[in-house]
């Protein structure tokens, strides 16, 4: 049995929406970070799906770039988050508004 491309795209759209809503409504920095990852991977899934549907290797190649960039972003992001946890007890994104110019 083969799953149709449309189902994959629907799943990707669902994952992306979960990520986007999570980013907007959650206050915990770590959770927000996970939401961003969720959105990124939803996009990756879209790319792979289209690559298979259109029989074009380009989509899969782009995914590799996204993975590499996401890995780099995780390193920087987690570094910042660890630095924040060292300074203060909780980790609410709103607490950090004191950093504005």
């Amino acid at each position: 049995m083969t799953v149709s491309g449309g189902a994959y795209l629907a799943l990707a759209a669902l994952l992306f929406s979960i990520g986007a809503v999570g980013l907007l409504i959650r206050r915990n920095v770590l959770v927000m970070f996970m939401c961003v990852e969720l959105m990124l991977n939803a996009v990756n899934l879209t790319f792979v799906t289209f690559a298979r549907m259109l029989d074009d290797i380009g989509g899969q190649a782009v995914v590799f770039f996204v993975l590499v960039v996401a890995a780099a972003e995780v390193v920087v992001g987690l570094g910042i988050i660890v630095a924040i946890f060292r300074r203060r007890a909780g980790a609410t994104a709103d607490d950090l508004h004191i950093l504005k110019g």
Partner: protein
Amino acid sequence: MIHAAWLIPAFPLAGFLLAVVAGKRIGEPGAGWLATTAVAGSFVATCVTFAGLHQLQGEERHVVDTLFTWIKVGHLDVHAGLLIDPLSITMALFVTGVSTLIHLYSIGYMHGDERYPRFFLYLNLFVFSMLMLVLADNFLLTFLGWEGVGACSYLLISFWFERDSAATAGKKAFVTNRVGDFGFLIAMFLIFGAFGSLDYAKVLPYSNLLTSGTATAIGLLLFLGACGKSAQLPLYIWLPDAMEGPTPVSALIHAATMVTAGVFLMVRVSPILTVAPDVLTVIAIVGAATALFAATIACAQDDIKRVLAYSTISQLGYMFLAVGSGAYTAALFHMITHAFFKALLFLAAGAVIHGMHDEQNMKRMGALRRYLPITSGTFIVGWLAIAGVPPFAGFWSKDDILANAWDKSPILWAVGLVTALLTAYYMTRQVILVFYGEARWQTAEGHAEPHEAPPTMTLPLIILAGLAAVAGAINLPFAKTAVLEHFLHPVLETTQHELVASGAHKVLFAAIATAAALVGIALARSAWSRTAERPELEPDVLQRAWRVDESVSALVGGPGRGLADFTAYSVDKNVVDGAFNGVAELVRRGGEQLRKVQTGYVRNYALGVAAGTVLLFAYVVVRVAN
């Protein structure tokens, strides 16, 4: 032979460059002889080119020698090229010829000056610029020469810049000329706009395609430029003050050559003027008014050089009267004869000043003919020529102009005739005050006796006196003898009217002009031969040149200054600076409001990003749907 024309400007340019590099090392007489040789070489090159041109026939006498591409931007394509035609070669002949003589004269006159080499450096640069002006094959190159002679004029008027008056006179000349140059520049813009080219060959033959409005605008603006350079009303005020320069400079630049550049320009663009008859009328009126105005002032001046300066303005007025009457040949004819006799008069005046140990006031001269025999003899030839006594040169050229002025309007002719009478009067007054009567200088100061000038100074005087006597022969008003007119014919339309051609009128006009000259001479003789003090004949208003300088000072210093202050302290401070500061303030306040967007809450930013994405998406969907 004709393609060696580039040598004509190359000689003085080489002389200039040599003087720049090694002028100080060459030292006193050497630098002068070097410069003189350079200009003499240029004169020889001009003669050779003239001979080459003379071999060609009629319409072929129009040779363009392109040297190199000067400016090429978009449609603007300007070459540095020489236009050899009868008009330019006639100008070049008398420019280089008179310049050679004046260079020779300067060797003696500038003897002992501490900036001797620099003087000749400037003179050579001037001759080069003047030759570029007359030989150029396009408006822009002519303008380059035009500005070059202006700069040299400035440098040479204020040559003795330690004197305050000389420095001020130089500035005055420069600033006044800028007013005219503005007209020249705008005219060039209009010409380029109308024809897409600045080459004479691509503009002048097609000038009848111009609308009369454009032609009138171009003609008037070019005439404004000519007014500045050739000292016509109302831009003449710099020329009398230009006499602060050394006398050879007055002779070369401010009498014989540079000031004729305006007349040359008008003759060069005569095809455009033909399309705009209104401009010709304006030129004729301004010329006649200037001629009369300057002549009245010359009647009451005491400075020997100032009389000649106002006389120059007056004679230039004659030339413009001729141009305005459509008699271009007559204008050129008078320009040539004037170059000879006015250069002669100035150089002779310089010899008098030299001999009198820098005394310029004619009231403190007198009886000098016994001490300066050569100078006085040549000066008297110049006097007869400018007064219009036959058969000297000035008679023929002035007569030609008056006859043509009659054809334009009898009023202009009458003004010209009165000016001729005044010319004879003030020149006779000058001759009597300087060379005849009692020796007033002995009583004034017990100085050494006046002495005759050295041979390098008297030789040019003698040559110029010869030319001033016979130069009328180049264009005698008889059918076969109008050599100049026949030579210039391919360039200038024939403007000889029925009137001039008919013999009886010609004789009548000549008789009236001669009578006017003789009356002027007789009046001056009866008034000045016994005494040098006739205050009733020298009213204050004329001595002060109709108070024009004072009026200009009062106008510019009073309301003009007020306007400038108003512009600076009200308009500039509030409107211009206000607009500038207002924009800055607007940006500052806008930024202050805008910074409130930065809250520091990540969710706000995320919401913004999400909303933006949705909007973009919606926009794309709507566009694709349509």
